[in-house]
């Protein structure tokens, strides 16, 4: 039974509720207690005025007892308030404190209702215009309490008032105390129609107040939730921007270092010649190194510019792209064939692996081939029109070129690099496999980070900017592609680039 009881209690005020915040602020300021003191002083003042204005009026002792009970109750509330540790604003307390606050407020309002009803009983019942205090009470309940609690308070007000006026009319509650004892013949409490009208009027007023005030509260709650959600989003955005700025600063720092490195090495090598440290045959070797480092510095700057270009462009350019992946790979094959031959690495031409999937574009293309053959046109091997992907052609050439370049760089003489295209239902996979030095598993996570180079690559002493795969990652993040790496040290690496198909086929 306890969990259900806890769940019900916790439901009084879920954290973040606008009404809970308002109520907590009022509790912090002891607002209800303060108002009760003011009402008590006003009641005492009215009793004294009553004695002066209406010296003959014989008010019952219940009026003073009621005022005394209000003061006593207020002292009890002050003591109970101190038992509830409400944190300083704007901190929100936990559900237990919120539940205590809600129970304490409900209890105070019910006791206030009882005392108001007793006061009405001793000061005229149905004749007393102070019945409007019930409405003040209900408005407050609708603003501060949850809907069900507010409705209970409204119903309690109506039941208590009805008990007094019906009791006096029916003769259960006697004697009747006039509101104005000096004015004779009013005797509304004996008139059933007046009693019914008073109860009906109060019922309508309470319902109207509850419905309108609850609607306002709901609206304010919704606004508060929207504001809180917006605040959360803004905070998250601000944190993301801060993180991005920190990453950008780190990147600039690293980039500056990486650009300074080749220049520093060139200066170091030149100083070896100038200072006579390098002599004889070493001078030619040092000069060769200087030329090579100049070339690698230029390559690094070019890759940085490529990365900057890709980051600067909007990802939208990929959505409408219709890049034929086979065309790009054939172009790259021509570019890398000579360096591969010079290094003694076999670079195979891209091969399209047929899968069981046949897409509509492919069927259309096959039909066109059949028509061409029927018309007796010369058929030359050309890129398959169905192999179109939604990646910008220049970016795709940079990415595939970087992966192929890496495959060739890290494959020793006698090795092989193979390229294949595997069309799938949603993507087109490009597999670039080499029989090179491989990548250590611990380097996988940082492989695509700018300026990070794997341990095996460093050990092999192969120069590189550490930007090639960072460019691939940036492009694939933008275009919605995926990159998978399979590798074994000393056996080779296969990189599978899954490219999203172009939206419409030509």
């Amino acid at each position, binding site marked *: 039974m306890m969990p259900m009881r806890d769940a019900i209690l916790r439901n009084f005020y879920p954290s973040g509720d606008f009404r809970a915040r308002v109520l907590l602020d009022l509790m912090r300021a002891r607002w209800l207690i303060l108002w009760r003191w003011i009402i008590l002083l006003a009641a005492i003042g009215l009793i004294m005025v009553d004695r002066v204005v209406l010296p003959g009026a014989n008010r019952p002792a219940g009026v003073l007892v009621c005022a005394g009970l209000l003061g006593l109750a207020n002292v009890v509330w002050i003591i109970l308030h101190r038992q509830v540790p409400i944190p300083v604003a704007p901190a929100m307390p936990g559900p237990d404190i919120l539940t205590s606050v809600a129970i304490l407020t409900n209890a105070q309002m019910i006791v206030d209702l009882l005392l108001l009803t007793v006061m009405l009983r001793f000061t005229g019942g149905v004749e007393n215009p102070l019945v409007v205090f019930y409405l003040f009470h209900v408005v407050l309940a609708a603003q501060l309490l949850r809907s069900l609690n507010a409705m209970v308070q409204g119903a309690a007000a109506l039941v208590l008032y009805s008990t007094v006026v019906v009791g006096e009319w029916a003769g259960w509650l006697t004697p009747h105390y006039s509101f104005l004892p000096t004015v004779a013949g009013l005797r509304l409490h004996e008139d059933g129609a007046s009693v019914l009208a008073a109860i009906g009027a109060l019922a309508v007023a309470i319902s109207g107040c509850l419905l309108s005030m609850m609607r306002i509260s709901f609206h304010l709650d919704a606004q508060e939730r929207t504001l809180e959600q917006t605040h959360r989003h803004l905070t998250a955005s601000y944190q993301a921007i801060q993180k991005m700025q920190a990453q950008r600063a780190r990147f600039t720092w690293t980039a500056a270092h990486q650009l300074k490195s080749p220049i520093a090495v060139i200066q170091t090598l030149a100083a070896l010649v100038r200072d006579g440290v390098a002599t004889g045959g070493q001078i030619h070797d040092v000069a060769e*190194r200087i030329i090579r480092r100049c070339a690698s510095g230029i390559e690094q700057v070019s890759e940085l510019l490529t990365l900057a270009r890709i980051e600067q462009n909007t990802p939208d350019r990929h959505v409408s792209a219709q890049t034929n992946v086979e065309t790009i790979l054939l172009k790259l094959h021509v570019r890398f064939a000579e360096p591969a031959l010079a290094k003694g690495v076999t670079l195979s031409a891209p091969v399209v692996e047929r899968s069981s999937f046949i897409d509509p574009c492919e069927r259309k293309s096959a039909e066109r081939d059949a028509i061409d053959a029927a018309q007796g046109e010369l058929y030359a091997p050309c890129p398959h029109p169905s192999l179109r992907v939604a990646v910008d052609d220049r970016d795709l050439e940079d990415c595939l070129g970087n992966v192929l370049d890496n495959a060739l760089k890290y494959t020793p003489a006698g090795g092989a690099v193979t390229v294949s295209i595997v069309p799938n239902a949603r993507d087109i996979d490009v597999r670039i496999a080499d029989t090179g030095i491989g990548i250590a598993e611990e380097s996988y996570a940082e492989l695509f980070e700018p300026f990070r180079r794997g*341990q095996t690559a*460093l050990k092999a002493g192969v120069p590189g900017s550490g930007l090639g795969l960072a460019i691939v990652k940036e492009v694939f993040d933008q275009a919605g592609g995926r990159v998978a790496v399979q590798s074994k040290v000393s056996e080779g690496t296969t990189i599978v680039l899954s490219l999203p198909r172009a939206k419409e086929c030509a």
Partner: protein
Amino acid sequence: MSAERILVIDDDPDVCDALKMILEPAGYRVACCSTGPEGVARLHAEPPDLLLLDIMLSTPSEGFHIAYEVRQDEQLRDMPIVMISAIGKKMGMDYARELGSDYMPVEDFLEKPLTAEAVRRVVRQTLDRRGRDASCATGSDSARAEN
């Protein structure tokens, strides 16, 4: 007297070769490692008299992590370390401070581009300082033993 041994951990083969060209004619035995793990393994296998350590290896701070690891090692903790990097001494120290004060226990800092004169001077001074510290420690031990 055998030649003093220097281990260079730097991922740039040109820097390693340049340091060999500078230091070997001056009478030092120089060995090079291009990765952190390879360098650490070598440190344990053949502890050198001096470690020349690049900061940015496979990660931008790997050099500092290696220096920290060396200082935590019972066998290697007294080995002098000279950092070499293109980021400069001040920035290097700022960077090390970001990682934590434990990452700064290096004897000196050599900024790239390197010159033969600066490399030889810093290496000599560091080794001499190390030698003096070692003899002081031995002297005080002997004095303590005599007492």
